[in-house]
């Protein structure tokens, strides 16, 4: 079984437990072991980098050094964690002087990062490392007929690797097709969900969420699938506020792509974190869950 150093990040320990559970379960079903990085620390999200860039990169490098010591590539399911780890890895590989600077601080912790590992988003591990054909072969309960709006958000396509088209990516839709769902057209799939803007400019953030939800509704999506805990929260948990603010009546389930993958791979729903939603998934998922019960 192929192993990765799993960096859950702070969100998956608290507000995105279902993402944590479903990531581990779906990976395991695909022959991948996510081995939690020992003594990991917060990636800093966007905050650290606005306070002290060198220290922020150093704190991220600590996680990279621990993964490297274990001889494993680092994988993060959270788009922000992924972005931070990806760029710190890239900068240190490209700039030996910067790497020296960061390693000077890491000496305090008896750590050193040589730049010998890769950083992955979990969706990349599934889409690129495992691949669509291998996933199709492992699907035992295809989610046929489920219309999915595959929401990338703004971070997993920045950065992209290997010259991939960042303006019109298709790996998320391909992944959803591989498990039997029907991806719908979704023009707002790369738009920002508002991120932490909800804390400082509620009206602007709700407007961003509303546009994404409306686009999913316009394209007859049953559910939105996401690969980021912050996107999930913004799109799901603020629906009531969006409804109030804009006079709408949205009731759009927002699930992690790993929950849908887990279902299609035959993992029992209770091990995928279902049941903690703000917006009920039952209208759309009950046929698949009932199939599971039989």
């Amino acid at each position, binding site marked *: 079984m192929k192993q990765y150093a799993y960096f859950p990040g*702070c969100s998956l*320990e608290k507000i995105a437990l279902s993402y944590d559970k479903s990531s581990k379960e779906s990976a395991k079903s695909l022959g991948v072991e996510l081995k939690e990085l020992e*003594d990991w*620390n917060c990636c800093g999200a966007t905050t650290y980098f606005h306070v*002290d860039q060198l*220290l922020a990169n150093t704190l991220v490098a600590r996680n990279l050094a621990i993964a490297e010591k274990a001889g494993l590539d680092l994988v993060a399911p959270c788009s922000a964690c992924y972005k931070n780890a990806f*760029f710190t890895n890239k900068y240190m590989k490209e700039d030996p002087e910067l790497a020296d600077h960061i390693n000077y601080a890491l000496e305090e912790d008896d750590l050193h990062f040589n730049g010998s590992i890769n950083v992955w988003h979990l969706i990349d591990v599934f889409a690129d490392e495992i691949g669509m054909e291998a996933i199709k072969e492992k699907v035992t309960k295809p989610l046929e007929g489920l219309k999915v709006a595959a929401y990338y958000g703004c971070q997993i396509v920045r950065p992209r690797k290997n010259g991939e088209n960042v303006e019109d990516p298709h790996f998320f839709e391909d992944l959803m097709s591989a498990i039997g769902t029907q991806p719908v057209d979704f023009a707002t799939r790369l738009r920002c969900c508002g991120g932490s803007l909800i804390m400082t400019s509620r009206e602007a953030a709700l407007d961003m969420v509303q546009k994404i939800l409306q686009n999913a509704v316009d394209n007859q999506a049953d559910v939105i699938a996401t690969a980021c805990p912050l996107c999930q929260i913004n799109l799901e948990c603020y629906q009531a506020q969006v409804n109030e603010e804009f006079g709408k009546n949205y009731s759009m389930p927002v699930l992690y792509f790993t929950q849908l993958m887990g279902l299609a791979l035959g993992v029992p729903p209770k091990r995928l974190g279902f049941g903690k939603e703000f917006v009920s998934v039952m209208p759309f998922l009950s046929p698949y869950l009932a199939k599971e019960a039989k």
Partner: protein
Amino acid sequence: MNYPGKYGMDELLICRALYRQCIEQFSLHSNQQEFEL
């Protein structure tokens, strides 16, 4: 994000000291510990 460039020894010493402070004060692991800013 463009990396701002090179650092002098002062910045490196400050970074190392702050890093030390982070790993000592917060114990770092998983943000599990409560702490006051």
